[in-house]
């Protein structure tokens, strides 16, 4: 059964069919959210919001694009909105940090058993550099690199999601990589000082 057929059934009132779409697409939506937020719990919550939002706007899905392209668009927009909102409330976050209510950093990444504590610390520092460097990218470069590296999407699909051309996506990814390299280099120099 194709996605369009499932959507037709959902629109006719068989809402349990939506479970199938959620099961199929939740890993990729989660990866996209993770690429933007770098926090597992936040990515989980945002994935939930994305699917609920998609369900609510399902009657507007015309089938011009595939369901995966459509849900990717929702996921990218929701992630960017969340980032914009959180950057607006940075002042409040700083206040929270001052009063000891800092949000816990998510170190739920798999750590190899034979890794010594020093290496784990270095690994965490590197992780922080990469996340900072990714977060410093402009929105369109960031979207292109997340869809390319986190979701392993071909440039053609990224172009469809971003409503642009393949050439533009290629240029965006190229510039994003150059900016990442530059930012990582400066972060490394700063940490040495």
């Amino acid at each position, binding site marked *: 059964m194709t996605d369009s057929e499932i959507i037709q059934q959902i629109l006719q009132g068989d*809402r*349990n069919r*939506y*479970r199938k779409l*959620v*099961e199929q697409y*939740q*890993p990729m939506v*989660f*990866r996209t959210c*993770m*690429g933007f937020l*770098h926090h*597992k719990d936040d*990515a*989980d919550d945002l*994935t*939930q919001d994305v*699917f*609920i939002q998609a*369900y*609510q706007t399902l009657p507007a899905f015309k089938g011009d694009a595939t369901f995966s392209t459509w849900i990717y668009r929702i996921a990218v927009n929701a992630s960017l909105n969340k980032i914009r909102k959180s950057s607006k409330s940075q002042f409040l976050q700083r206040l929270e940090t001052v009063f000891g209510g800092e949000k816990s950093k998510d170190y*739920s*990444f*798999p750590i190899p058993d034979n890794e010594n504590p020093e290496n784990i610390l270095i690994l965490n520092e*590197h*992780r922080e*550099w*990469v*996340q900072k*460097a*990714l977060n410093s990218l402009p929105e369109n470069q960031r979207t292109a690199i997340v869809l390319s*590296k*986190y979701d392993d999407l071909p440039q053609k699909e990224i172009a469809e999601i971003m409503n642009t051309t393949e050439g533009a996506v290629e240029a965006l990814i190229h510039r994003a*990589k150059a900016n*990442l*390299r530059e930012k*990582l*280099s400066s972060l*490394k120099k700063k940490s040495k000082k």
Partner: protein
Amino acid sequence: MPKGIRLQVETHLGDCKECAESYHLMSLAIRVVEEEKRLHTNPFLVTRIMTGIEELEQLRESNIRIPIYQKVLKPFLFSISVAAAILIGVMFGNIYLPSHTTNKLPVELSYMNDAALESVDLFSNL
């Protein structure tokens, strides 16, 4: 990457410090991205999403089921009754007016000297 090219790249990385640094930084980034990609969603996420949708649908259905009496008439009647209560209160308040025609004090009373009246102490000393 073909073996020959790979060997050339490795030799160049061994000689060129700048490229080696760049390669190191990008491999760091790739490592972090791969780590994040390995994370899985909460196993109950699908259930959470479906529950959220169900609640949403129930809310929507209950909104449809509410009869017009509850949706429109009830708040309207409530507002009317509050307005009526205020109006009646104002009206009752306005009913009382100090009378200018009745219960006038006799003129003699104004000539009475209260201080000259017998004091209560006079009787308590008995």
